[in-house]
């Protein structure tokens, strides 16, 4: 498979703290890649370097190369807002804006200069359908988004991310705050989305990684320990630390 996202000798520092050490990972397009590992191992940090959300943290410093579609995203020509338009992100806590459902989904397109009610209406419907939320909310799109349940809010956040028509979807422990039924719905959803989007997800839950991803990367203390096809990694881990982690001996 041709790598879509390529990280080469990536190092990240928060001030003195060395959070990512010589990370080199290649992520294929139109598949789900899962990052697993114990808390604080750097997997979320790595996710946030992909859409440069770490830029907002004072003292964060990146060395090495991260390329998406062959372009180094930390080079001077890259415009960070345009980059983020191509990369949707879903966070651990559902974070819809305190606005209506419609305004949440239309927020991104409006930022990027899409005007015209008809165009926006279409985009909103299409995004909500993609996020399998349309049937539940179509009767009243003017409802405040915060009146939805947690699982619905998270799917709304996915719809909001899809509305800017990204190529990549980053999911930062997107189901960890949800109940099992909502989690299941989101996992199903990612399964449908992977034919159209390159999905990178961080998860705490190894069963989840095994269930939904095609590729799995195991991190420990800011280093990549093992990267393989998911089935392979869970069935026959090469490194003993991976073995220990997936069999629940630590983390």
């Amino acid at each position: 498979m041709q790598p879509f996202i390529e990280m080469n000798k990536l190092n990240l520092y928060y001030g003195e703290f060395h959070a990512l050490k010589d990370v080199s990972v290649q992520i294929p397009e139109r598949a789900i890649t899962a990052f697993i590992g114990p808390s604080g191992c750097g997997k979320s940090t790595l996710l946030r370097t992909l859409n440069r959300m770490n830029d907002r943290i004072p003292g964060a410093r990146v060395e090495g190369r991260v390329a998406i579609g062959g372009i180094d995203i930390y080079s001077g020509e890259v415009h960070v807002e345009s980059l983020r338009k191509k990369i949707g992100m879903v966070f651990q806590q559902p974070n819809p804006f305190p606005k209506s459902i419609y305004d949440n989904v239309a927020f991104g397109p409006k930022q990027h200069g899409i005007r015209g009610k008809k165009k926006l209406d279409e985009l909103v419907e299409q995004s909500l359908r993609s996020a399998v939320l349309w049937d539940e909310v179509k009767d009243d799109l003017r409802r405040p988004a915060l009146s939805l349940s947690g699982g619905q809010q998270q799917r709304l956040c996915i719809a909001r991310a899809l509305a800017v028509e990204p190529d990549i979807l980053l999911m930062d422990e997107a189901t960890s705050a949800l109940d099992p039924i909502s989690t299941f719905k989101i996992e199903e959803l990612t399964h449908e989305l992977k034919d159209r989007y390159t999905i990178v997800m961080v998860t705490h839950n190894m069963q989840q990684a095994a269930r939904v991803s095609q590729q799995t990367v195991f991190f420990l203390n800011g280093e990549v320990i093992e990267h393989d096809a998911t089935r392979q990694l869970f069935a026959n881990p090469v490194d003993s630390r991976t073995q220990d982690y997936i069999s629940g001996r630590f983390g």
Partner: protein
Amino acid sequence: MSVKKPAHPTLAYSFGKRRGASVLLDRLFTGLVWGTGIIVILFIVGLLFLLLEKGLPQLSWNFLYGLPSEIEEGGGIGPALFNSFYVLIISLIVSIPIGIAAGIYLAEFAPNNKLIEVVRICVEGLSSVPSIIFGLFGIALFVEFFEIGLTILGAAISLAFLNLPVLTRVTEESIRAVPVELRNASFALGSTHLQTIRRVLLPVAMNGIMTGICLTAGRAFGESAVIILTAGVSTSGEMWDFNLLSPGGTLAVHLWYVQSEAIVPDAQEIAQKTTAVLIIVALLINIVFRVPLWLNERKNKA
């Protein structure tokens, strides 16, 4: 997986500049906010420095301590400065116990019924009443009803009314902020409600209450409308006049009086020096009480 996927738009991928307008707007906005923020704050602080610069170098002990003069040059502000603190202290003595007790009631005893809602609305309402209304109230009460004229006592009590709602609210909020576990721990040890309030809640809430008292004191020190109406613009002209029924012009009032009505030849100078004293005392009241709080905040954050 059998479906053939269309090729990803990997080639000719670019994250180039967006439409110029929104980028320009962002730059403009950043510049505007930085510019306004720095210029306005510098402007206000600069104006105060100008006032200090005019007044400070002329200050002397004689001025701070001296008696005011109606006709000749060289008058001081002794009695006015004394009255400022005297009125302030009496007003605090009157308002602190009542304000704290009312705050305790709202935080601890009040059942959640209609009455409590009324009390709370009254406290909020009273805190929004313009200070000059307290002055008018003071005139009606002390000058008209009790017929004691313009006095330190009248001013201090009117000022106490002004302070009351602030103290009540601050006390209530500080006590409510005490963690429930502490409260439960005290009750579990068999303390009565009164003991819990006195030994646990008040000491923990003291920090917040002290801030409230400091804010109140600062405000009361600089208050002039209430004092002009209830204590008049003049002093008894003597130093250390503890008589509650003397006229009670304070320093803030003195500044206004000197500036607008006095006929002494050096009125301008006196006004400048008085301003400097007012600014410094107000800053001192605020700083002295707040420094421990700031340090605390730093410590908690670190």
